[in-house]
């Protein structure tokens, strides 16, 4: 008997814990808030952007069509020269007679086999012309 009373009491307590129905006022306020939420605002903005883009694209197409039509009507306009399409090029030559010799083994060997001082002259030339980065005016080493 006692056990039966205890169960009834628990049942009553659980019934009291059931959520109550939401008021109409609260539902209205929630609806207003959702309308103003960033997600909704972003979606509205995107829609606007799409509309502007479509309008822009249509305007651009119209402009291009008008430009093409005026070009067709204007027969006296100078025709641009035809472009030459480059064919396969010959392999570049490293050393032509009028080009300064590059710092190659062959160039140095030729100089060494030449007159006395030819090798030194070529080395001096390359010492002046390779890696020429530090000048008097920009020298970070100059005190």
């Amino acid at each position, binding site marked *: 008997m006692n056990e039966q009373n205890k169960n009834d009491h628990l049942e009553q307590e659980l019934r009291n814990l059931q959520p109550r129905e939401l008021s109409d006022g609260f539902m209205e306020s929630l609806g207003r808030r959702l309308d103003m939420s960033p997600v909704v605002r972003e979606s509205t903005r995107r829609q606007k952007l799409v509309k502007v883009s479509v309008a822009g694209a249509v305007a651009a197409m119209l402009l291009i069509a008008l430009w093409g039509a005026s070009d067709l009507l204007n027969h006296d306009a100078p025709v641009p020269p035809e472009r030459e399409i480059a064919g396969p090029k010959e392999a570049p030559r490293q050393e032509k007679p009028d080009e300064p010799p590059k710092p*190659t083994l062959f160039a140095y060997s030729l100089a060494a086999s030449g007159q006395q001082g030819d090798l030194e002259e070529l080395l001096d030339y390359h*010492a002046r012309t390779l890696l020429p980065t530090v000048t008097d005016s920009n020298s970070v080493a100059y*005190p």
Partner: protein
Amino acid sequence: MTKYLLQLLIALVLFGGICGRSFAEEPFASPAKVTNAALVYWQAFALLPELSDGDTKLLSHLEKDEQPLNKAEPLLARSRLALGLIRHVKPDTPCRWELIEDGPSTLLPHLSKARLLARLLILKARIDAKSGDRAMALDQLSQALLLARNVDDGVLVQMLVGDSIESLAVDAAQELLPTLDRRSRDRLSEAIVNLPPRATFGKAIMYERDVFAEWLRPIVSDDNEEAREKLKPMGAINDSADMAAILAETREQRTQWFNELLAAYGDIVKASRLPLPNANQEIIRLEQSFSESPNPLIRLFMPASSRARERHMQIDARLAELQTALQDAAKPEGKSS
């Protein structure tokens, strides 16, 4: 026992991983742990000043004592970062230039810069010695000699550049000699002994053969059109009359000429091993015969070796003289040999 072994292995792997990772993350090389001298030299080259024609002439005049030494000071001031940096190269630091081999087209951009850097070092040594800073002068000279050895990777041209630097350094050392006290003489003597060994003329000729001949081998063995294509990027060689004569011949003829070229390199090396006066005479005779040879490959590719060898041997003799002078002067009075 097995359990501990496994734990030990895991610990070693972890330790190795941590060490490897910390090594890979080091942004700069410690001055005490330079592992490749060439990388330090390249940094110094990048810091060298731009030279005008006037600077080049001045350097040459200063070396011949045609201008007072103090005229070099502005140029040396512009070079001070480069000169300071290379003191981190030690005689036992390995030097690997790692040039990209491409036969006669192999680029040697370091040669001219190494020669310039060494000339500036020697000039600085002479100025330091004049102002009484002998220790600094000896450091500069030792660095110039080390650079001369490091620049010589075995090819004849590199040997010539190394020799030209050593010649200037020995001149400066001999100029300095009377002013050096015993300690300084010992120091210079020790620096010379500790240098990497000098390249030999015979090895330089054989290396030259390997570089030029190995590049030529496929050209002479291909048919004419293919050979012509391979020569195109060479410019100067390709345009020469000798090369036109080579390409006009059959493959058999070209192969014969090629084999004669290989033998010619060998003849020079054999001649260089003869006793001294005979060696010189024989090399000069061979050189003469090469310039008049009916074989265009020999005319085109055989280097002028007699002058290079003579100069190389002169430097050997002068270095030996300098060492003797340093050691004799360091001995107590009356004991010089």
